[in-house]
């Protein structure tokens, strides 16, 4: 996993990390994610704007860049869909936490909803009743991982619904490795203008049914300017579709394709495609 130095900032050195430190860090990391697009993402959009020849596409990319600047200057969320709060948390194994970490993150989400503010998006899946504070059953989604060291790293990745809704997962046949690219490209074509292109495409190959989806989402945390040959090849095929920014035509349909793999059962080939809008929002904070 690659993390950006510019998106990394450290809190003041505290001897004993407590509940409130994590609450505050959660509010801060969400604020940063919503108001400042990571530098690599902005660079990818700027590069696309320079390359784009379609007039409507150029204008659309220009509007996106103006919006990013406005959000940063006014310190307001760049998009009204402030998403579902997703967190990736790395806990150093030498840390001793004398409080409920997940409870602190939940409290941070509640406070961020009021203070930033964030749109309350979390609803009961059947009754559709809004919880009004972005928390609920399994929300925020908190992914915990134990790592070496004595630091606590919280990465916030608010995920909007427009792009999440057109994501896809397929249990492919083990003999269909050469059809992975087609599945990804078809998924992007079917999505059309819905996910707010230009998009970022996270791909998870292997693992299990749920594991592939998790890999696809984690892939979206990577630096979008660093792609391997396989990823470039898929990106090229996607941009040949001509969907363009907001589905209005042009050669910028995706800005990056990011792929993570995991070993899988010899009889399986799970492939997950997690689509992310141009607002590839993420920020991280490190506590000690």
């Amino acid at each position, binding site marked *: 996993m690659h993390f950006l130095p510019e998106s990394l900032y450290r809190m003041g050195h505290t001897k004993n990390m407590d509940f409130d430190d994590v609450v505050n860090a959660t509010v801060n990391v969400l604020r940063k994610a919503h108001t400042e697009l990571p530098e690599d993402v902005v660079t990818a959009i700027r590069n696309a704007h320079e390359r784009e020849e379609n007039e409507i596409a150029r204008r659309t990319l220009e*509007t996106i860049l103006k919006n990013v600047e*406005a959000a940063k200057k006014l310190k*307001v969320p760049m*998009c009204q869909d402030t998403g579902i709060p997703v967190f990736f948390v790395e806990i150093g194994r030498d840390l001793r936490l004398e409080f409920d970490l997940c409870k602190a993150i939940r409290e941070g989400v509640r406070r961020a909803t009021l203070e930033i503010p*964030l749109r309350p998006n979390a609803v009961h899946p059947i009754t559709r009743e*809004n919880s009004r504070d972005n928390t609920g059953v399994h929300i925020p989604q908190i992914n915990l991982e134990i790592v070496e060291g004595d630091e606590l790293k919280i990465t916030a990745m608010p995920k909007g619904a427009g792009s999440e809704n057109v994501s896809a997962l397929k249990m492919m046949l083990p003999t269909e490795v050469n059809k992975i690219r087609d599945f990804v490209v078809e998924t992007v074509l079917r999505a059309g203008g819905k996910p707010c292109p230009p998009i970022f495409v996270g791909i998870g190959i292997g693992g299990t049914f749920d594991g592939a989806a998790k890999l696809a989402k984690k892939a979206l945390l990577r630096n979008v300017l660093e792609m391997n040959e396989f990823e470039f090849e898929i990106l090229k095929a996607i941009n040949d579709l001509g969907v363009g920014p*907001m589905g209005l*035509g042009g050669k910028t349909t995706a800005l990056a394709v990011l792929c993570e793999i995991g070993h899988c059962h010899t009889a399986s080939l799970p492939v997950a495609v997690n689509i992310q809008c141009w607002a590839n929002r993420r920020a991280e904070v490190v506590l000690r």
Partner: protein
Amino acid sequence: MEYEIRTPLSVEEVLKLRVGDLVYVTGELFTARDEAHARALKWLEENKELPFNFDKAVVYHCGPLVKKNDEWKVVSAGPTTSARMNPFTPKILERVSCMAIIGKGGMSNEVVEAMKGKAVYLAFTGGAGALAAQSIKRVKGVVWDDLGMPEAVWLLEVEKFGPCIVAIDAHGGSLYNR
């Protein structure tokens, strides 16, 4: 071509717009997404009077992020994915003389057909919520707030809201069908 359109709309104004034109909207618009569309249709079928009027109106597919201090203020308010409103829109268009929809991502061929002679679809850049909020001057009111902030119907006063691109016109033209 570049136009500024004002609400309430007229059929003539709607008919002159062609795909690819740029449009800025001034006047009033109201937000409506999945839940508001579903309830509006239910009420119309039951002959109940709606607290807002689709006729000659600009409907914004948007769930705004708003904040209340003394009064409501729009913080960020870009468009939501219009395709989710595909099943409701033809039935609403049957009941109006003219209308404009602002959204993102385009709508179905059935909607394109139902828009002929009376309605246009204006694409505003998805995710550009901070920018959109700058041309929203005032929240004039909110109804159906029991649906929650994103799904409620917000009546907004706008000035030169845009740039919107005419992506589906009233003559069957669509930028999405290429």
